């Protein structure tokens, strides 16, 4: 048995993420006590029509979201309780909507910072309708082994440690959320645990209070004693004392009150709870509350430290009197466990998961990315640059300063080649059509292929094959003619012997000036000598030169097209920005640039 939150309780939660989090915690409890999930619906207008997925054991449960309480209770007539998790400015309207619904009997509000007037109006509305309004600022209600409303009870481990999977004999009512958990824990250590624990919230005038629940506990035969945790301010503890002292009560009452420190602290100081404030004329002091409770027959330990022993003593007396039958403890190991996430299970060595992807270059699981083991910030601080990052991520090695300088020059020389080349034109057309940056640049990159910028890898592949096979340039050309076709890296649309490519001259000149061995570049230049003898424009082009130099530096053939792609991306981005800033108009070809060689207009024959 229990009060307020029972096996019959079915819930609608009003609110967004905070409410969903509470629902998750409630699902954990349902899983622990092997009960079906009790949250039937959410009401959260921004997400109306969607569903919220919540883990229940190892399953996922879908809970629908509605715009109004009426929709929720019409579709789910079992709902009898609402938990309010909306902000303080809308909490009043939300709770009133719930109180106005015929099916809902209990509204519990966790929202903090709700204006006092709103709380009073809701209390009045609940009273007029014969319903229960708990809160504001109330952490929730939990009945051991039966029902959890809100996050009260804490994490799954705490539910088990505090024996919340089965009822005990103690009721708990507190203002504070944290202390409700503490008392539940104490009741499980010093006694046989709880029946129901209720957080009523620390506001000045909560919707229901100690006296409300003491009355209900008195009628619940399973509850033999109740622990209330009070604090200075207001008169809720006085009302509890009055209730307890009115007549002979079945339940034992244990009470602690905080706020004795106020006697030595500056007058008018505010504590954490809105209600924890002394009245203007000394009403509501901790001392007076403790005295009244004691006078009414409650057990009131002098300090919080003595509460545990007081609970223990009360429990033992009740057992001796035969009021409580000591129960055998459930084997905690036999209780349902909260399924581990894959992360946790791996961490604890419980499962092995075959990885889906393997990487040999990078790791960003720490506080910053590591490039082949080197922290990005270390590289920066020790003077390394972009070419070194390329060396690491494309060839897994730290380049020398000389190699880095060559890579840098290659990137600089090939960063752009004007708007007319196919790639830049594609980007420009994209930009002028209002296409965003990444898509327009991608359009340019799509042009990179055998006829534009994409011959570097192939050129490197054949040059390195020839050098490896110790071919003569003549034999190489024979081989290419017989097996491949035109030599990648040789030939240019406009450049020729008479109109040499300045970029090639620059790069070759610089690399040769370093006096390093360059077998592939030397071979390519010998090939050029022969091909230009046949036709003036069969020069070693920029793709071929880059390829030969990069292979000489030891870069893998697979990386070579990357250099052009990377470098030219800089240019494409520039073209996109340039067009964007000019506000260029949509580009459309002129008819006179098209040779219309399609058939002239003719009659369409009837469809057969």
């Amino acid at each position, binding site marked *: 048995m229990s009060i307020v939150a029972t096996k019959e309780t079915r819930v609608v939660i009003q609110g967004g993420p905070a409410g969903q989090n509470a629902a998750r915690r409630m699902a954990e409890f349902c899983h622990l006590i092997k009960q079906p999930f009790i949250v039937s619906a959410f009401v959260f207008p921004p997400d109306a029509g969607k569903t919220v997925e919540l883990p229940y054991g190892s399953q996922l449960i879908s809970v629908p979201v509605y715009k109004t309480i009426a929709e929720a209770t019409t579709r789910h007539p079992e709902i009898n309780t609402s938990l309010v998790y909306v902000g303080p400015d809308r909490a009043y309207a939300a709770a009133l909507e719930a109180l106005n619904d015929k099916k809902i009997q209990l509204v519990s509000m966790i929202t903090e910072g709700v204006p006092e007037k709103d709380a009073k109006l809701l209390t009045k509305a609940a009273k007029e309708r014969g319903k229960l309004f708990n809160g504001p600022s109330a952490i929730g209600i939990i009945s051991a082994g039966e029902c959890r409303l809100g996050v009260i009870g*804490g994490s799954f481990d705490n539910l088990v440690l505090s024996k919340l999977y089965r009822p005990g004999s103690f009721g708990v009512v507190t203002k504070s959320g944290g202390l409700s958990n503490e008392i539940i824990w104490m009741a499980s250590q010093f006694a046989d645990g709880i029946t129901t624990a209720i957080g009523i919230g620390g506001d*000045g005038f909560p919707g229901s209070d100690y006296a409300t629940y003491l009355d209900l506990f008195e009628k619940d035969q399973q509850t033999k004693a109740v622990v209330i945790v009070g604090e200075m301010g207001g008169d809720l503890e006085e009302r509890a004392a009055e209730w307890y002292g009115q007549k002979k009560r079945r339940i034992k009452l244990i009470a602690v009150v905080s706020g004795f420190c106020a006697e030595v602290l500056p007058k008018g100081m505010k*504590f954490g709870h*809105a209600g924890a404030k002394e009245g203007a004329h000394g009403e509501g002091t901790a001392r007076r509350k403790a005295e009244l409770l004691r006078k009414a027959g409650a057990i009131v330990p002098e300090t*919080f430290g003595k509460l545990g022993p007081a609970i223990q003593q009360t429990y033992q007396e009740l057992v001796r009197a035969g009021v409580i039958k000591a129960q055998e403890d459930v084997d905690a190991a036999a209780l349902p466990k909260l399924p581990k996430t894959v992360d946790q299970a791996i961490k604890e060595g419980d499962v092995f998961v075959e990885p889906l992807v393997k990487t040999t270059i990078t790791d960003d699981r720490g506080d910053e990315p590591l490039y082949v083991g080197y922290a990005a910030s270390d590289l920066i601080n020790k003077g390394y640059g972009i070419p070194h990052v390329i060396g690491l991520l494309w060839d897994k090695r730290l380049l020398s300063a000389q190699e880095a300088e060559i890579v840098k020059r290659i990137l600089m020389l090939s960063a752009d080649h004007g708007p007319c080349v196919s790639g830049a034109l594609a980007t420009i057309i994209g930009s002028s059509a209002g296409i965003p940056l990444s898509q327009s640049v991608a359009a340019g990159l799509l042009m990179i292929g055998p006829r534009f910028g994409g011959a570097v890898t192939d050129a490197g592949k054949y040059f390195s094959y020839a050098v490896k096979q110790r071919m003569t340039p003549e034999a190489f050309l024979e081989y290419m003619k017989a097996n491949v076709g035109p030599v990648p890296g040789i030939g240019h649309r406009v450049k020729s012997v008479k109109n040499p490519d300045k970029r090639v001259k620059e790069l070759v000149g610089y690399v040769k000036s370093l006096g390093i061995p360059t077998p592939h570049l030397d071979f390519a230049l010998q090939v050029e000598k022969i091909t230009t003898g046949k036709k003036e424009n069969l020069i070693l082009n920029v793709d071929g030169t880059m390829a030969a130099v990069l292979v000489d530096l030891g870069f893998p053939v697979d990386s070579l097209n990357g250099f052009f792609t990377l470098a030219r991306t800089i240019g494409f981005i520039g073209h996109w920005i340039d067009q964007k800033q000019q506000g260029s108009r949509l580009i459309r070809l002129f008819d006179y640039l098209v040779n219309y060689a399609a058939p002239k207009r003719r009659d369409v024959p009837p469809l057969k």
Partner: protein
Amino acid sequence: MAKVLEGPGMDLLKKWGMEVPRHVVITSPDQFSHLANVNAWLRDQKLVVKAHEAIGSRMKLGLVKVGLDLAGAEKAAKEMLGKTVGGMTVGQVIISEMVQHEKEYYVAVKSVRDGAEILTAAVGGIEIESQWEKIQRLFVSVGSPPEPAALKKLAKSAGFPSEMVDPVAEFLGKLYECYDQEDGQYLEINPLTWRASDRQLVALDAVIMVDGDARFRHPDWNFTFASEFGRPYSNDERAIMEIDSRIKGSVKFIEIPGGDTALLPAGGGASVYYADAVVALGGKLANYSEYSGDPPDWAVEALTDKVCSLPGIKRIIVGGAIANFTNVKKTFAGIIGGFRRAKSEGKLEGVEIWVRRGGPYEKEGLAAMQALEKEGFNIHVYDRWTPLTDIIDMAIQGKRAS
């Protein structure tokens, strides 16, 4: 409850149709002559000058001067502005007209369970302090404003002469309306008086407390709330209040000069039990603080900074119950960050740190705290198996955990 200072408080009364003395609030003496040029009453009337700050016993401290002419008022304002009293500086002065009157009365509206109480007495001023029993009360249920007949009956029963019953009842109606519409929690006018010049009821002085939580629906509340414990808030207290106002969850910080035991506990409820435990053992609190509702770690870190900066502390109590949803690991990460910075600034010299906590990620959080010992902190860490306030016994009495 949030206290509103006299200037904005009087403006609220005026907004709801009640007569108040004319007044101006100034922050520098230069403003005074300019105001006197355009406000004839400042030249014609006898004036009252008061420090416009939440400082207790202003009369005794010489921060209230009455019956002044323009020159006298200007001189008094000049003297008060910038004056330092108990470490607090007077930044604002209110100058109001002295209202000639004879009898004084008392009216108030007070928030109570389920509604409000309207209080009135046909005596007021300091006389009421010794005659509280003369106050007559009327309960008003929330959402049901008082009937004029009920207010007249109240005025009559308080002993107002018959010609005053109607105007007093009307005034009480306005005061209730102000209380209800402005989310008041305690409005007390003492004294209320009968202005000789125009036969109007005038509120001479008032205590105005409103519900700070209702600020969201009062865009015209352009005032900041004043402290209620006899001194203005310090800069550190204001800094934490400012953070508190814009985060999920809460952080609270109030300084108590002269203490040696600093509080840094979790929970509005548990924190007061920690404070009680310290006081019960004869310890001296250096502050009241708490954090709750799973606040962001940076906010807890900022709070930790302020706690570590309290002068003369010998110990810091990082207590807390078993949290429902506050992430112990994350909030402790904020506290640890604050401790490390304080230590690097040489602030925690000889300070003991006592920790007790439970809740989500308690193992990880407590382990991280325990690890501070290796960094040279004098730290003692306990988990849920040590009762809540036992760390206070150990910290102050040197008792070890049983």
